C-alpha cells in the first residue's frame, strides 16, 4: 500500500488559521501527523517591555479576536490581585455578561465552522446568522463587535442602561429559540452523526493524562471548568460544568452546543444581579509581585502569569492558552483517522492558533 504525503496548511481553506500538519496517509487513512506552528507568532508577550501595564490590556485583548474580552479579563484580574484592588459588584457582573456573550458567539462561530468542516453549509450559515444577533449586542453595548475593550484594571469602562438590559434579554430569548431549533440537527441528524459519532475518540484517562482543556476535556467526561473557581461574578451565579462522556467529536460539539445555551442562562443571571455600585475601583500604585490567574475561555482553561517589579512596565507576561493544551491530545487522536475526518477532528478541538502562538 502506498503512502502519500498531504501537506495540510498553513494556508488551507478548512482552517481559517495557519497551522501546518504533514499528514502521511495510506489508503486515505492517516498513519502519521506532524504539526508545525509558528505562522501567526507575533511575539506579543515581549511587547510588555514597550507598553505599560494599562496599555497591555489592549494588547492582550488581541491575543485572540474571538474571546478577546476574556483575555483582558484574566489579565486585569491578575493585576487586581497583585495590586489588591477590590472590584465593585456591578463591574464583576458586567464582566460575566460580556464574557458569556463572548462564549456564546464563539461557540456559535465554532459550531458553524465545525458544520462547514463536514460540508454542511446551510447549518454554518444558519448558525452565523444567529451569531450576528449576539454581535449586535456586543456592538451596541460596547462600541465594537469583536474586541470590546471594556476591561480596565479595577473594573469596566462601559455600562448598561435599563433599556439595553431589556433589549439584551429580549434578543437572547430569540437567540435561544433559534439555537434550540438546531438542536436536533447538531445532535441527531443522521448524516451529521455519521461524521461525528465515534470519530476521534479521546478517552477520559487520555484526556486527563495529555492535559486536555475545556470542552475537549469535558467531552471526555472530566467535569472541570475554571468558572468553578468563582472568579468575576461567578461566586453568586449558579453554575454547573457541562459534561459528555463519549469523548468523540459528537461529544465535543454537544458540550459546546449545551454551553451556548448555558451562557444565555448565565447572562440572564448576571443581568438580574446588577446593582448600583461603581463601575471601576480606583487603582493606586504600580504592579509589584507575581501572580498566576486562570479563567475559562470558550476553548478551555487560560492561564496568565504576570510579574511586576514596581515599574509601570510589567517584567513578564506569560500566557498559556487552551489550544496549546489541546494540541497533544489532538496529535494523539489523529493517526488512524480517515483523511476526510481530519478537518472534523482538528476543528473539534476548536483550534485557535493565534492564541497558541501569540
Amino acid at each position: 500500500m502506498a503512502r502519500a504525503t498531504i501537506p495540510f496548511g498553513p494556508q488551507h481553506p478548512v482552517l481559517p488559521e495557519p497551522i501546518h500538519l504533514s499528514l502521511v496517509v495510506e489508503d486515505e487513512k492517516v498513519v502519521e501527523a506532524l504539526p508545525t506552528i509558528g505562522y501567526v507568532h507575533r511575539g506579543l508577550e515581549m511587547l510588555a517591555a514597550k507598553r505599560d501595564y494599562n496599555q497591555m490590556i489592549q494588547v492582550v485583548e488581541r491575543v485572540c479576536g474571538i474571546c478577546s474580552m476574556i483575555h483582558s479579563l484574566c489579565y486585569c484580574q491578575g493585576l487586581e490581585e497583585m495590586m489588591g484592588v477590590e472590584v465593585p459588584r456591578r463591574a464583576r457582573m458586567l464582566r460575566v455578561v460580556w464574557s458569556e456573550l463572548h462564549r456564546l458567539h464563539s461557540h456559535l462561530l465554532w459550531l458553524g465552522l465545525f458544520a462547514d468542516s463536514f460540508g454542511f453549509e446551510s447549518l454554518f450559515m444558519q448558525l452565523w446568522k444567529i451569531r450576528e444577533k449576539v454581535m449586535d449586542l456586543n456592538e451596541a453595548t460596547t462600541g465594537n463587535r469583536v474586541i470590546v475593550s471594556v476591561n480596565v484594571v479595577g473594573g469596566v469602562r462601559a455600562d448598561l442602561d435599563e433599556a439595553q438590559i431589556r433589549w439584551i434579554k429580549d434578543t437572547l430569548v430569540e437567540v435561544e429559540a433559534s439555537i434550540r431549533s438546531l438542536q436536533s440537527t447538531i445532535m441527531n441528524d443522521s448524516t451529521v452523526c455519521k461524521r461525528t459519532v465515534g470519530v476521534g475518540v479521546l478517552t477520559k484517562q487520555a484526556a486527563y493524562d495529555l492535559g486536555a482543556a475545556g470542552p475537549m476535556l469535558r467531552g471526555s467526561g472530566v467535569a472541570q471548568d475554571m468558572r468553578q473557581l468563582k472568579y468575576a461574578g461567578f461566586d453568586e451565579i449558579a453554575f454547573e460544568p457541562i459534561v459528555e462522556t463519549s469523548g468523540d467529536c459528537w461529544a465535543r460539539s454537544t458540550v459546546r452546543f449545551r454551553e451556548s445555551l448555558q451562557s444565555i442562562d448565565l447572562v440572564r443571571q448576571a443581568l438580574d444581579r446588577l446593582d448600583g455600585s461603581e463601575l471601576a475601583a480606583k487603582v493606586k500604585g504600580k504592579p509589584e509581585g507575581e501572580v498566576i490567574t486562570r479563567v475559562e475561555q470558550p476553548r478551555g482553561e487560560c492561564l496568565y502569569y504576570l510579574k511586576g517589579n514596581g515599574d509601570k512596565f510589567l517584567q513578564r507576561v506569560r500566557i498559556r492558552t487552551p489550544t496549546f493544551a489541546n494540541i497533544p491530545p489532538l496529535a494523539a487522536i489523529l493517526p488512524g483517522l480517515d483523511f476526510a475526518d481530519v478537518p472534523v477532528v482538528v476543528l473539534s478541538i476548536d483550534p485557535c492558533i493565534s492564541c497558541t502562538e501569540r
Partner: protein
Amino acid sequence: MFGSFLKKSQIKSPWLMHFDCGSCNGCDIETLACLTPVYDVERFGIINVGNPRHADVLVVTGTVNRRNAVILKNIYDQMPTPKLVIAIGACGCSGGVFREAPNVLGGVDKVIPVDVYVPGCPAKPEAIMDAVVTGLAKLGKILEVA
C-alpha cells in the same frame, strides 16, 4: 461585444481568497462573517475560494511575520493575473498594535503590493465590502485603460 462581456465579468465575479497572515482572528472572523446571511457578499458574485489558482482577490489579515511572509508571497505568485490584494485591519495595514513586536514585519505591503487598505481593529464587515467595491472599481479603471 464578447470582449466587453469578458471585461465586465472580471468585475462581476471577484473570487476571493483569505489568508491569515498572523492575525488575532478578529479580522478573519469578520471576513468570514461577510459570507454569511446578514452580509452575503455572494450578492457581488464573490465566492470564497481556498485555492490561489482560482482567486482574483487576495484578502490578507494579520501582521505578517518572518515565517509566513514567504508563504504570503508564494500564494500571491500563484494567483492568476490580474489580481487584487486587500489588506484587512490595523494589522494588515501596518502591523497595528503589534507592529513593534519582535517577530512582526508590519503590514502586508512589506511583502506584496496592496491595492486597498481597510483600517479598523477589527475591520467591520461593511468596511470589507467597501474595500472589495473600491478594489473592483480600481480594477475596472485598469481594464478600461488597457
